């Protein structure tokens, strides 16, 4: 079941660094909603996902953290100290490293996750195949995972964690290597799994976020410069000119706002959902 994710005045500073990677971040993602973390590189997006997943403390235990992270009914002060899988699943930015490389087929690679959780039996293969069909990669089931293209690897990487049916799904730049068709599929997938999982994903561009996200957070140099919904972001779009490079959409939105008034932004949002 999807869980809410709340950060209260959360800050984190890596060991040996003089400036915090994240400073005073407060955000709330209601259960079953999708949150986009936007911002340029080094804004702190990945650190934020790692903090929630539990891997940040595990690998940088001497880092300084303050504030509080709440996942569902559990509160972690300041952050989870152990990896929270399968409650929270986290897909790394590079899909190639998500593939273990020790299994001969895509089907077997996904089984590996269930085996680690002690959940695998022959009947679970049907759920794996159903998930692969949902992701449009069922034809790859018997292929060797290390021979796939970038987009295919991205989707297999996603399948390796989605099969665990996490309550919270953290995706670091899931659009890397995806073409427009695959992005549409991912958008449909997000809509399909929102009841099961709360989703937080990072991106450097805003088109996808505007199409799928319920909550949008913009980070810059570790600080939160915006938190709100899509309409709110569009209303303040001019403030983020330098950090959200999406010139075509900005142009379109600006033109529509000038020519047809601010209420036209609603129409744009609706149009984007149908694209």
């Amino acid at each position, binding site marked *: 079941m999807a869980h809410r994710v709340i950060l209260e005045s959360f800050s984190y500073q890596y060991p040996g660094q003089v400036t915090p990677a994240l400073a005073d971040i407060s955000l709330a993602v209601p259960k079953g909603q999708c949150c986009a973390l936007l911002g340029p590189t080094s804004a702190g997006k990945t650190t934020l996902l790692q903090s929630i*997943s539990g*891997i940040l403390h*595990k*690998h940088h235990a001497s880092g300084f953290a303050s504030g509080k992270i709440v996942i569902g009914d559990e509160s972690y002060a300041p952050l989870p100290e152990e*990896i929270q*899988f*399968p409650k929270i*699943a*986290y897909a*790394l930015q*590079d899909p*190639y*490293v*998500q593939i*273990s*490389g*020790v*299994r*001969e087929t895509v089907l077997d690679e996904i089984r*590996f*996750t269930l*085996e*680690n*959780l*002690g959940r*695998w039996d022959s009947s679970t293969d049907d759920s794996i195949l159903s998930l692969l069909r949902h992701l449009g990669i069922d034809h790859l089931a018997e292929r060797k995972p*290390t021979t796939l293209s970038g987009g295919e690897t991205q989707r297999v990487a996603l399948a*390796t*964690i989605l099969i*665990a049916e996490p309550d919270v799904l953290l995706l670091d730049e899931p659009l890397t290597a995806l073409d427009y068709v695959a992005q549409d599929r991912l958008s449909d997938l997000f809509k399909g799994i929102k009841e099961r999982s709360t989703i937080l994903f990072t991106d450097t561009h805003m088109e996808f976020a505007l199409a799928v996200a319920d909550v949008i957070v913009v980070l810059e140099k570790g600080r939160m410069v915006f938190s709100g919904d899509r309409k709110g972001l569009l209303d303040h779009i001019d403030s983020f000119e330098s950090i959200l490079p999406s010139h075509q959409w900005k142009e379109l939105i600006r033109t529509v706002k000038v020519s047809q008034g601010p209420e036209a932004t609603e129409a744009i949002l609706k149009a984007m959902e149908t694209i």
Partner: protein
Amino acid sequence: MRLDLKSKLASVFFLWVCAFTLDWPVNATLILLAILLRYVVPGFRPTSQRAARSIVAFMSYSTLIVLIVVSLNAVLLPGGDVLLIVGGIGFHESGALFGLRTACRLVLLSLSVLLFFASTPIREFIRFLQGTGFPPQLGLVLLLTLHFLEQLPDRINQIFAAQEARGSPVRANVVSRARAFVSILFPLVLSSISESIDRGQALELRGFLGQGQMPVFENRRSDTSLLTMSLILLSIALIILRILNWLIA
């Protein structure tokens, strides 16, 4: 006969014992037999074309190494008859024999290991280790290392192709190939280490070292335990004979 991993490991152990305890004519015969194994025993057939190519490459390089080791020893270690004189340099019998002994030993040792790994899929090997109680953490480290080695030739080819696309003659001849290889070695190793760390992290994030552990695969019934036992007993007998030989001499 289909060999299981235990028998294959026992064969490698037997060849190692032979390499250290027997003289060069037997070792040379064993080298030829080991090469023959690759063709006639299904358990020693290479798992991929790349593995098969590596055995062929090994054989050609080892021929060269045997020639160099024997020649150098024959020239540098005087003693016994002079077998031939080339350009005023004499090749001595005892040096040549010492060279043959050393070279055959080296080739037999490395060939046995190569045959084992070329004919054993990584997964099969880890399955075997886990069956013997190998901890999953060490299994992970081994998997990552072997995966890195498996991917290395492809990575080198990719980097070379990228360099060629920029007009750099990295594969023009042996010298340019060697120079290019040296220049990419450091970043290649660093990036591979970094990737291994990330891959390990991704595996952790999939519950690898959490409440579960990498599953122990089913045990397969072995029908070659007699062969395994025979090879181990034969190896022990060879070691004892060798020790007795030293004591009597």
